[in-house]
């Protein structure tokens, strides 16, 4: 109890919010990496996240491949699809206005969503929680399904690992250098086009991974991408476009903020992100963690 308020509902909502935050962070991380290097606003990111969930469902349904292998396979499949997309289409747009990349990937998102909706219907299919993570954990102030706790922890570890790779390893250094000045890096003998392709593949692979993790929580449905993509955009913009750490922190932070909103004014939980975005863009145009242009 604090000031006469019972704190545990607020705590409980915040913990739940972190589950959403975990997905925001994973998704916005990939989006930020792609934007940083490719300068492409990847509208298909949400659809690729949905694709990750669908692939894991298909693996289970048709090949009997369970959650744990899917956690590796589905991101690889989605990543491979991303590589194909980059090689065949996106790489022709680098010289054009941002607008065209956005419109192209928007189109790709619509196609994927339509195909999935035609095949599994708009309310989707369920994907059960893996055996090892069933049941619930008592946190004192609430009972939390173990799987959801796993999502928060796993996502956090993945985000931090990715960030460390980008910040502390030679590969990361090359990548960051290419972001700053691709021509210069190319002159050092780095195959920049291949680097770009692989980066796109890795970025959407992260989206695929988020999709697999989301499948048992939200069930697999064709709208899961379009429901989340706009929010994730906002997260990237708030964090500072292209800022890796910014997108991770903002992702988790937003989850927390939504959770808090849910315990005070539940109806507004979906809109709080946009209010935040407007405020941030008007006061800090480059985002919370972005470098001023």
């Amino acid at each position, binding site marked *: 109890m604090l000031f006469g308020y019972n704190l545990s509902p607020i705590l409980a909502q915040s913990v*739940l919010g972190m589950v959403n935050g975990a997905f925001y962070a994973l998704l916005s991380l990939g989006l930020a990496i792609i934007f940083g290097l490719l300068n492409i606003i990847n509208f298909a990111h949400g659809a690729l996240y949905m694709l990750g969930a669908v692939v894991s469902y298909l693996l289970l349904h048709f090949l009997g491949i369970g959650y744990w292998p899917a956690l590796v396979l589905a991101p690889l499949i989605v990543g491979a699809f991303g590589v194909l997309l980059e090689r065949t289409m996106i790489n022709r747009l680098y010289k054009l206005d941002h607008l065209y990349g956005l419109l192209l990937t928007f189109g790709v998102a619509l196609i994927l969503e339509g195909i999935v909706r035609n095949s599994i*219907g708009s*309310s*989707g299919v369920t994907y059960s929680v893996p055996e090892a993570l069933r049941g619930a954990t008592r946190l004192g102030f609430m009972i939390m399904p173990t799987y959801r706790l796993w999502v928060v922890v796993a996502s956090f570890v993945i985000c931090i690992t990715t960030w460390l790779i980008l910040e502390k390893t030679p590969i990361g250094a090359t990548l960051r250098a290419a972001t700053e000045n691709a021509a210069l890096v190319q002159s050092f003998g780095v195959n920049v086009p291949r680097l770009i392709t692989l980066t796109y593949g890795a970025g959407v692979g992260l989206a695929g991974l988020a999709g697999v993790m989301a499948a048992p929580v939200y069930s697999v449905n064709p709208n899961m991408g379009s429901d989340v993509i706009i929010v994730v955009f906002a997260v990237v913009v708030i964090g500072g476009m292209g800022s890796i750490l910014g997108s991770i922190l903002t992702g988790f932070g937003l989850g927390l903020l939504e959770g808090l909103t849910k315990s005070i004014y*539940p109806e507004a939980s979906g809109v709080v992100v946009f209010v935040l975005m407007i405020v941030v863009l008007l006061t800090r145009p480059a985002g919370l963690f972005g470098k001023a242009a």
Partner: protein
Amino acid sequence: MEISRRSLLNTVATGAAVSALPLRRARAQAKPVIKIGVLNDQSGPYRDTGGTTSVVCTKQAVAEFASQMSGYTVEVITADHQNKPDVGAAIARQWYDQEGVDMIIDVPNSGVALAVAGVAKDKNKVHINSGAATSDLTGAQCNANIVHWTYDTWMLAQSTGGATVKAGGDSWYFITADYAFGHKLESDTTDLIKAAKGSVKGSSSYPFPGTTDFSSFLLQAQSSGAKVLGLANAGGDTINSIKQAKEFGLTMDIAALLMFITDVNALGLDVAGGLHLTESFYWDLNDKTRAFTKRILPQSPDNYPNMDHAGCYAGSLHFMKTINKMGVAAPKASGRDIVTAMKAIPTEDDCFGKGSIREDGRGMFNSYLFQVKKPAESKGKWDYYKLVQTSEPAQAWRPLNAGGCPLVKA
């Protein structure tokens, strides 16, 4: 020269677009055709409670009645309204205007149903509703062109809600689908709880369709301290709410105010066993319902008919019987006259037995309170219900003068 080529080009471009437009149809057929349109959710959260099984049941009614049709044939067309009122209203308008549809049936989703009912009135055609719940269809928003066949929120509140209150559930928290249906179900149930001196501790309404995660609402319900969690939702949403309530170890009693046998099947008896629910039809109720189900199953093997499906069958049958009496020109001339005649003729079919349609458009049939069997009690496929209580029409439905339907003369 140059200019005329350009203008030609323009003409061709525009002309090509125009010739591709939906043209008005000219038809010349020997026998007059009566058209029935099944409008429902075929891909969303209500696809199993309505969906293709509704279409199957409507077509079954047509096939069974074919030999008795006096000088006409019946055609059935279908569409998916995607749970959007604007989509539903636009399809209804186009069906009545363009496709020669005489009667639209099913239309689950109260928001869409109210919109379609308005179009039916506007165009003076017939709408028989089986899938939607809101008691406003025969209350404040009733009109002379519609029949509400199968069930409504008042009857659900009375039966399932009443049983829950009687069992000691006197404080409630609602999780409500945020549209006409959810709110009406919540308010009809609240009236009943208040009348029984119970209390409502709060409610959360969530965006429909599109919500799959109910966890934060469940937490709010838990922390409200209420004894009963009232689910004012349906179909896939109800399934998800109950599953997640289990995941989060919710300790409240659950009152699933609207649940169909299709939902029980999706949940499984180990989760749904013990719940109370209300339907006006159950496939295993008597010899006639079993015979009906036997005729439907070959065409819908994975989905047993529920009350919504049965209502599509029975409603279509009654509509065709009325046309036999009124003549085939009548539905084209005035849907209102058809509905008036439908109210004058008693109903009888394999699903609902003998019944009638009241002045306000309310179908008057028995309603049944069931308890879902535990896994051990179930003897076979889809053997899910134990009959707890049967309500005669006079008790089952809202009294005629209490709905505020303008058609009812005081």
